[in-house]
């Protein structure tokens, strides 16, 4: 297992350097000058402009700038934000737990509903439940996320008043946020009702962010199950006299899980990087909103560092998924 992890980590190296290069090049290709943006409407004198150019090192050749940046990254120094002057690393890890918490909740929500739904649909292929589920999955998959979020807010927050509109916790609660995970910190704060408030605030964003993964997982589970259900070993399991629940839920599902785990892993990756709309709508202080703001401000170090860190997170998720394959399917383990 250690050897497996090590060999996977080796393949990450080229990906990692590729990401740093693309992140570095991408922000510089964008039109716009970070110094002009920073100066704002007041403008800046040519002398001061030259001074700043030298200060940020933009007068040196791009290759040299990249080399300096890479050296910093390898030492764990992602630079400081032009705007807030804080280290990118600190900013990222202040905001990342919020995104991670939301993404994990969304994927758990999507898996807990999508997996059983896909199994039941496959077992009852062509019947009412299957058709209903598959058409709702298609709707869920093709629905614009911002529209769906607004709809839920109008109904559940506006008309029914069941859920809060935005934020991570009610303003009535205040406590230190050492881990950045609101559910955890709220639980440990010991304040009455804090955990409940945090959960309350998570419900709508979780549903909104989890809708597309839910649809994808349900459809993928169904098609993987349909393929497995026609296998010879399913007939063997039934010939043993096993109850349908065991045949479908143990013998078939275990084999159908490989493509489903792949989809779940890919979804986590996209959620980490792509929760931007959901975070914006619910004023969720995560990295999605932070990245978008930084791009508008031409905050080079933040955009570069953010992209690299997000890429590393996605790589870690992929590694975890690869390791899970082995646990699920012994054939892969032996390779």
């Amino acid at each position, binding site marked *: 297992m250690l050897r497996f992890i090590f060999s996977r980590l080796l393949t990450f190296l080229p990906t990692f350097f590729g990401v740093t290069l693309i992140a570095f090049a991408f922000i510089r290709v964008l039109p716009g000058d970070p110094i002009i943006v920073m100066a704002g409407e007041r403008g800046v004198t040519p002398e001061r402009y030259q001074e700043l150019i030298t200060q940020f090192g933009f007068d040196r050749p791009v290759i040299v700038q990249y080399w300096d940046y890479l050296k910093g990254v390898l030492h764990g120094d992602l630079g400081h934000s032009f705007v807030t002057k804080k280290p990118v690393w600190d900013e990222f890890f202040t905001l990342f737990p919020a995104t991670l918490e939301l993404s994990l909740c969304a994927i758990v929500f999507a898996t807990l509903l999508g997996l059983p739904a896909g199994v039941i649909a496959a077992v009852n292929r062509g019947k009412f439940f299957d058709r209903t589920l598959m058409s709702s999955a298609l709707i869920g998959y093709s629905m614009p996320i911002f529209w769906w979020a607004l709809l839920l807010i109008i109904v559940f927050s506006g008309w029914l008043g069941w859920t809060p509109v935005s934020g991570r916790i009610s303003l009535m609660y205040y406590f230190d946020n050492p881990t950045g995970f609101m559910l955890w910190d709220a639980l440990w704060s010991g304040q009455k009702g804090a955990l409940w408030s945090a959960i309350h605030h998570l419900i709508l964003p979780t549903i909104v962010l989890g809708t597309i993964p839910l649809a994808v997982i349900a459809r993928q589970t169904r098609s993987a199950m349909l393929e497995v259900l026609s296998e010879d070993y399913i007939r063997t399991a039934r010939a*043993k006299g096993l109850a349908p629940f065991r045949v479908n839920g143990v013998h078939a599902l*275990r084999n159908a899980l490989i493509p489903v785990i792949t989809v779940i892993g890919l979804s986590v990756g996209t959620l980490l990087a792509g929760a931007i709309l959901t975070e914006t709508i619910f004023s969720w202080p995560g990295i999605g909103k932070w990245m978008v703001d930084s791009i508008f401000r031409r905050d080079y170090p933040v955009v570069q560092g953010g992209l690299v860190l997000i890429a590393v997170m996605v790589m870690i998720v992929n590694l975890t998924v690869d390791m899970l394959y082995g646990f699920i399917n012994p054939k892969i383990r*032996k390779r």
Partner: protein
Amino acid sequence: MPLLELRNLSVDFATASGPFRAVDGVDVSVDKGEILAIVGESGSGKSVSMLAMMGLLPWTATVTADVMNFDGKDLRQLSPKARRKIIGKDMAMIFQEPMSSLNPCFTAGYQIKEALRLHLGLDAKARQKRAVELFEMVGIPAPEERLKAFPHQLSGGMNQRVMIAMAIACNPKLLIADEPTTALDVTIQAQILDLLTGLQRDTGMALILITHDMGVVAETAERVSVQYAGQKVEEQPVADLFATPHHPYTSALLAALPERATERHLPTIPGVVPGQFDRPEGCLFSPRCKFADDRCRTVPPVPASADLGFARCHYPLSVSAEAEA
């Protein structure tokens, strides 16, 4: 009373292009401790009739029968739950492809113990003991090690032994072997057949052997039922069938055995088994039968008497196959 009695068993499949009758009025009867062989080409409904009896067909299949009794119970009356108490316990089945018939995600031990827990309610220790004992019975060396192996770590012959061990785990009264040797090497085929007949002798269970290999039939079976295009066309004790086949199809099958060929070229039966869209009006074998006349082509024949092997033919043969060839 026979252990298993099926009368007028029919299976229809709902297909996209309309209903298809895969099994058409088949009678099967097996006594305790008897070996029955069911012979026929691919597509003759051999496997489907047994799968129907086990209740293992997909939902697109409709099974009808006048009588479907096993061990004094009417299978048609049983709820699915009550039926699951019988299949895998008193009535077990092994299949053609050992490599794909075992679940790749679970060890051989897990899969065999699953049946032991379900039907016999043994505890973990007793399950392990019985599993080792079963692996020894089917001739698997180092059983403790093999119990921990996954199917892809075992050979095809070894997997078929695991399948057999699983099938006989709960001392079934009837074992159905659906072409158990087709996917195996010739040397392994003989071993598996010896194993099956040996187990049958030792345990006294009845054995239904589904095959298209007349050589296998001659070596193992006591009684033979020949199926063609979903119908039973003839049934006789094995010696009589080989000596005096009554149906032209049986006769042609026997003539196609290499050991019996007298000419340079091996005789074959021209054509293929009729499918969904080319079923003949009269006798189903008439398009391929060298004796067929107008009556054969228009009027479906009914089974003949017992001394003519219930041959489903207007003109049952009564000369010996040797003499005719």
